[in-house]
């Protein structure tokens, strides 16, 4: 760990994904005690909102639940902002129903698409699959600034942002938890951590992508069998501030064992020992550019990308 313990001071703003926010908050709480002069402000403007502020140099670290897009990379370039992309965790985007829903234990990708596609007018569970009861379908999901929204629509509907509009939107996943758990016909989606924290109110739906229904768990997310909804979570650090002692200390803390413990605490899946070593190298060497080439991460294996340290620009 870098920095003389206790002596680092400064202010770092971490903004972006509401999925990553629990990890950021957990890390912030831990770091409070170690470095009292280091002020970390956490916000959740959404993955999209975070990137906008990042490109405008308003924040030092942007968190994201999907890779940065070409459009966002370009916007940063015009402002002279370069970034270091650091995956810090795996998440299994979870589809949830309330505890009292005992019939929807699994759904196929086609069924999910039927429910969520832009022109879908499905109003009852019985239309989703024959044999389901006639309960009104009440949908909950993130708003359009959310990386989770981007990732889900890309994975399920094939196009980022393509979604039916008549659902209860919130940038606040807690609101979605409350909504789904209180509604008999509720169906929603968000990061695994929010399901983990509320297992008493929610049932998670196993996803069948053709190879049998797989439910998200630490194992299935970590080895990628929970697909296509397994995804990496990211920190994006501005290259021009990466050497500042306060930023450096915070990022190294995120990537440390304690930081990875925070990932686990919050219900996400930490990277493997090899993977985290590669990510730490990425930061120390200050490798810029995105490994995903400005494109979505659905179906891409992180391990292979990390191996190529240079990454695309």
């Amino acid at each position, binding site marked *: 760990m870098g920095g003389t313990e206790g002596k680092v001071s400064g202010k770092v703003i971490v903004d972006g994904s509401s999925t990553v926010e629990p990890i*950021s908050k957990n890390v912030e709480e831990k770091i409070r005690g170690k470095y009292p002069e280091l002020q970390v402000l956490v916000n959740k403007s959404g993955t999209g909102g975070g990137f906008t502020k990042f490109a405008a140099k308003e924040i030092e670290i942007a968190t994201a639940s999907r890779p940065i897009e070409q459009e966002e990379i370009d916007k940063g370039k015009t402002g002279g902002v370069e970034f270091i992309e650091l995956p810090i965790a795996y998440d299994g985007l979870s589809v949830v129903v309330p505890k009292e829903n005992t019939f929807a234990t699994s759904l196929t990708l086609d069924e999910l698409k039927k429910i969520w596609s832009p022109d879908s007018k499905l109003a009852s569970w019985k239309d989703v699959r024959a044999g389901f009861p006639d309960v009104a379908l009440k949908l909950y999901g993130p708003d359009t600034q959310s990386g989770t929204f981007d990732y889900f629509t890309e994975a399920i509907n094939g196009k980022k942002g393509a979604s039916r509009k008549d659902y209860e939107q919130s940038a606040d996943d*807690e609101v979605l*938890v409350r909504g789904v758990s209180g509604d008999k016909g509720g169906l929603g989606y968000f990061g695994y951590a929010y399901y983990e924290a509320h297992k008493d109110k929610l049932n998670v739906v196993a996803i069948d992508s053709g190879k049998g229904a797989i439910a998200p768990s630490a194992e299935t997310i970590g080895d990628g069998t929970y697909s296509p909804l397994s995804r990496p979570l990211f920190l994006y650090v501005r290259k021009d501030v990466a050497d500042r002692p306060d930023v450096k200390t915070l990022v190294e803390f995120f990537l440390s064992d304690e930081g990875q413990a925070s990932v686990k605490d919050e219900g996400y899946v930490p990277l493997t020992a090899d993977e985290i070593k590669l990510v730490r190298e990425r930061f120390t060497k200050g490798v810029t550019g995105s490994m995903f080439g400005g494109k979505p991460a659905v179906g891409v294996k992180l391990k292979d990308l990390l191996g190529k340290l240079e990454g695309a620009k």
Partner: protein
Amino acid sequence: MSTLNPLHTTPKTLSNLARRRAVEKAFAFVCLAATCLGLLLLVVLLWGVFQDGIHWVNANFLTNFGSRTATRAGIKAGLYGTIWVIGFTGLLAIPIGIAAAIYLEEMAPKNRLTEFLQTNIANLAGVPSIVYGLLGLAVFVHFLKFGQSVLSGALTMSLLILPTVILTTQEALRAVPSSLREASYGLGATQWQTIRHQVVPAAFSGIITGIILSLSRAIGETAPLITIGAFSSISRVPERLQSEFTVLPILIFNWTTDTKEGFKNVAAATIIVLLGVLLAMNSLAIYLRYRRRTL
């Protein structure tokens, strides 16, 4: 005239009378019930909040910052933030408001311009607080580049409560009998001397009441400050006007939406603290007002 029936009551009027009396009793009951219903509902709801939160209010609660764990969460950031923001709001709004009220009530000629000023202030008092929030966002945060700071928050809240301060001060000044002013003029005092040494001191408790009521409105306001920019997690108390901040109502809002175990109790506990402060302030205002009436 029959002495047995001096009021000429026929059977019809007697039964009519009985009916009217019954209606009267029923109506009185309905009115009383209506008055009590509202009060009762609120007592029930407040009792619910009290039960949810009272066991969570302790010294740690007041001195801790927020946390991912409900039992460790505290309101220090919000407490200090509220004090900073409302403190500066008062510093700005009170002098300007009182001066404006003095102008309108004591100095202004009775012409169209004054009428326009008066109407404008009354209208501003009715503008929803969220509009002030947007105003603050566009003007203070972005245009003047004060950012998401205590300064932006205080400026926005000052604009919000200024109409109320002006109107309540005017009311207090108006209540001062004109005989007082006339006596002062009669002794050769100038207008300002009269205002400064006679009218304002006489209206003092009314003015203070108005200030307390305006500030307690500001303390409870959430929407404009959320719009200005509240961080979802802040673990510092403000150190300068440019510092980021959060306030108690925003903490309540965040924790109410948090469905994790225990956070609804934390929200309730924060509500208890906030209501406690407001109760103290409003009780003071009401006491001052009713004391003045009986003097």
